[in-house]
């Protein structure tokens, strides 16, 4: 798969199979295309070429099995909704057109809020929450999607210690239930502790595999050891649309 923004490729020839039932960290330097990878897989940015399948079927037919936690900064937290409203949005996919969330959806939302330890905040307007609490609301919303695969974009960035351990507990309980979780992560020291599997990324796939054998100094060197200037220049050339006179 190759992904391009404004015709400028940011990810080249990613060829990847994510194993089922694992916690998978997507690791790489800034601008490596970690978030872009997730967004391309979910169809939020168009892939220039390539295809994505979940359990052997195209994404469009499997959306109900996919949960998504976007970056916290991607929304306006002054929006006039409560914590419960946001979490209930996770159930909209299963509800489908026109049907309003009812008692069952409210119960789902309550249960998911409990799982992230946010029951006390259920009726707060979301602006009143701290950054870590907002992150947990997004996690609860993804839980309400009741998916088999989860994509999380930097859930650990800028959160307090309580939230960090809450997220970690949640990830582990998801793994126990046999779910697959892909997490964009950029805190290297915690990678070994958090993830079974890593995907090392820097504009192209560097390595992917079990953390034990893949998260090595050699591979990290390759991921972080200077950006590949040739790829940068080629991307620029593609954007310009060919050699300049």
């Amino acid at each position, binding site marked *: 798969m190759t992904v391009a923004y404004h015709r400028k490729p940011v990810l080249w020839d990613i060829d990847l199979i994510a194993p089922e039932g694992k916690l998978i960290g997507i690791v790489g330097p800034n601008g490596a295309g970690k978030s872009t990878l997730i*967004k391309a897989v*979910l*169809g*939020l940015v168009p892939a220039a070429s390539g295809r994505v399948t979940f359990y052997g079927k195209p994404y*469009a037919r499997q*959306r*109900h099995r*996919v949960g*998504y936690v*976007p970056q916290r900064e*991607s*929304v*306006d937290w002054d*929006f*006039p*909704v*409560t914590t419960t*409203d*946001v979490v209930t*949005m996770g159930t*909209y*996919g299963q*509800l489908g*057109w*026109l*049907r*309003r*969330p009812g008692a069952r959806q409210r119960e789902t939302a309550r249960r998911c809020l409990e799982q992230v330890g946010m029951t006390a905040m259920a009726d707060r*307007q979301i602006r009143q929450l701290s950054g870590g609490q907002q992150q947990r609301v997004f996690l609860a*919303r993804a839980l309400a*999607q009741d998916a088999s695969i989860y*994509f999380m974009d930097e859930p650990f960035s800028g959160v307090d210690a309580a939230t960090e351990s809450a997220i970690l507990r949640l990830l582990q309980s998801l793994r126990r239930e046999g779910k697959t979780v892909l997490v964009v992560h950029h805190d290297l020291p915690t990678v070994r502790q958090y993830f079974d599997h890593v995907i090392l990324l820097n504009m192209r796939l560097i390595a992917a595999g079990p953390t034990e054998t893949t998260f090595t100094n050699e591979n990290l060197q390759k991921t972080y050891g200077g950006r590949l200037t040739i790829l940068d220049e080629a991307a620029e050339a593609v954007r310009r649309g060919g050699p300049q006179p």
Partner: protein
Amino acid sequence: MTFDYLTVVVLLGTSLLGGVAGVVGTFAVLRRRALVGDVLAHAALPGLCLAFLVLGTVQFAGLLVGALLSGLAGLALITLVCHATRTKEDAALGIVLSTFFGVGIVLLSIVQQQASGGQAGLKSYIFGQAGLMGRRDVYLIGTVAFVGLCAMTLFYKELKLLSFDPGFARAQGWPTLRLDLGLMAVLALVIIIGLPAVGVVLMAAMLILPGATARFWTDRLGRMLPLAGIVGAGSAAGATLLSAGMLTAWLGFDLFAFGDTTANLPTGPLIVLCGTAVLLVSVLFSPRRGVIAAMGRTARSRWRTGLENLLSTLYELGERQPDECPEVPLQAVLDRRRWRPWHARTLLWWASWRGLIERSDHAARLTQQGAQHAARIVRARRLWEAFLIHGVNIAPDHVHRDADAIEHLLPAELVERLEAELPKS
């Protein structure tokens, strides 16, 4: 005060228009598409004039088709300019808006030079003149209002998700582009039918003001939408009464008696002014978001801090004396705290009124209750200072200033944890 038939028709029309514009506009603002409405309205003017040149009448429905077409052409041009020239969206909005409006004004003056007599109503499309509204126009407005409100109610869930987090909506499989287009289509309909009453220049305000007002009174979208509808309908109705000279007739004299009567004022500006007045009241008096409430909160916390400082000062000055609650000379307190005299007097009065101190002319002593309160504050501060020195390794001489503010804010539960974390020595 009596309502003649014509006024009732006009009132009904503008209220329906204001209501639906408030509701649809709220979604447009939350989806960050408010300026699109502004462009659509301005870009409609050339279409109005062209339609008049072609049709030769000021008939409502015919002109509106022209307005809709040129408005949509304006929106399409913005998309084109953004994509083809890499112009930023706000710049493209500005360019298209002013160009179309300019063309519209030029066409309008051409139309005016044709002395056919039928063009009289056309000029009112710039600032709006609700008085020209007829019964059939109201039927049209009513239909659009019904369609718009039904669409917003039916697709409430989808639009809420789309406005809050479009990325998540897409990942969940909602056709966000089609939802956006649907919202824009309803927005365009509302704007176009509003043009004769409000005019192209100020139509956008009718979309934005009610939602902005409603936001001051609620944190729930489900309540904000009907509230915006009511505010929109109310300010439109109020403005219509003003514009139709109803207020003048009712009062018996002209409130705006400079030269002309208000009966000749265009409706558009009056609707905007009524909406702004309601917004201003909300900005000032909203209990949670309002300016006055915020000032009240600041003042309360300042006075509470002052009171607690008074109590803790009395406590510390009396601490080394054998009595449990000894008398402390007021001068000693004032030496420690740099209070203005009136501030100190008010604090002393307030503390004794609440039964926290007993005072004589030149001295004061804490009551039992006051001493308890003071002890809690002094303890919180000292724990915090100790925490900063031992836990955070801040030099002792840097500590006191910061601690002086925080003891008023620390929740009891955090103070307990501070105590637990300190080394037992």
